[in-house]
């Protein structure tokens, strides 16, 4: 039985050189290749619908090991493509079309949007800035037993208020930090805070932001972030980059 296949799209760029990427291993053990449409090039591979069809994806996307492996492979292809051009629009995970022709048709439909995205990300990279609230020093638990039930509740009320106030303040500072960095970027995007189990950090995350920065200004941006560390001692600031512009190539239509 011949299993059906589909065309998996990793990214779209302009005039990419096929030579460099051919033979690269893509998702599901496939081989990476390119398809051209007008001046655009889509980086793709042929995938087996047994693994990447709609029903299969519903199963596989719930298996963390599969998601991890696929995301890593996908990202590797995107990075290699980004390295050989100045403007690349990375696609989200598992964007799959019925065939190369179907993919081309879709690219034609999205042409104007794709050109806008490519112009937006040309010679720019994504930088990630994450902020964690430093744990406050908690007074040691040698609090005397409350003298009465009412006293206990009043003490608890005060403790809860203090903590909420401190957390509120740290969140405000994180927002302020975000606005300090905005002038250094061509575009910004805020993402939801990350699951603590995945970050492995105990402290709450107060900011998870992406910045689209001109490559020629990347050093300036990095220094700008470093300058903020002194201004916000209660915040733990993590900066990463430059990355391909994942967050800035988002098209509302799949």
């Amino acid at each position, binding site marked *: 039985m011949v299993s059906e296949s589909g065309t998996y799209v990793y990214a779209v760029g302009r005039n990419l050189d096929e030579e460099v990427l051919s033979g690269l291993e893509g998702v599901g053990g496939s081989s990476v290749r390119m398809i051209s449409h007008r001046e655009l090039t889509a980086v793709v591979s042929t995938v087996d619908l047994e693994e990447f069809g709609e029903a299969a994806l519903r199963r596989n996307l719930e298996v963390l090991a599969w998601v*991890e492996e696929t995301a890593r492979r996908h990202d590797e292809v995107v990075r290699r493509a980004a390295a050989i051009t*100045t403007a690349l629009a990375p696609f989200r995970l598992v964007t799959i079309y019925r065939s190369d022709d179907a993919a081309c048709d879709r690219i034609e439909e999205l042409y104007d949007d794709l050109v806008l995205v490519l112009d937006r990300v040309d010679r720019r990279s994504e930088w990630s800035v994450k902020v964690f609230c430093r744990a406050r020093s908690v007074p040691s638990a040698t609090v005397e037993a409350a003298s009465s039930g009412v006293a206990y509740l009043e003490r608890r009320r005060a403790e809860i208020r203090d903590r909420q106030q401190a957390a509120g303040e740290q969140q405000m500072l994180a927002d302020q930090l975000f606005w300090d960095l905005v002038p250094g970027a061509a575009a910004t995007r805020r993402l939801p805070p990350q699951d603590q189990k995945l970050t492995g950090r105990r402290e709450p995350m107060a900011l*998870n932001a992406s910045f689209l920065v001109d490559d020629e200004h990347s050093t300036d941006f990095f220094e700008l972030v470093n300058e903020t560390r002194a201004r916000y001692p209660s915040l733990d600031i993590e900066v990463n980059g430059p990355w391909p512009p*994942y967050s800035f190539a988002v098209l509302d239509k799949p």
Partner: protein
Amino acid sequence: MTVQTHTAVTTEPSLVDLLDRLLGKGVVVTGDVVVSLAGVDLVRIQLSAVIGSVRKEMGNL
């Protein structure tokens, strides 16, 4: 073009950073618990982080 600068942090994104960007995600936990203390129905909890309170008639306390 990736820029090589000696001050840049060119580490690859962690898996969680990648999933943030390559996927959409959400979390739901659901469940229901009713509790009381000292004869007062205090809280009806939905563990989906929406909390309502149940007020019991004070007459029988």
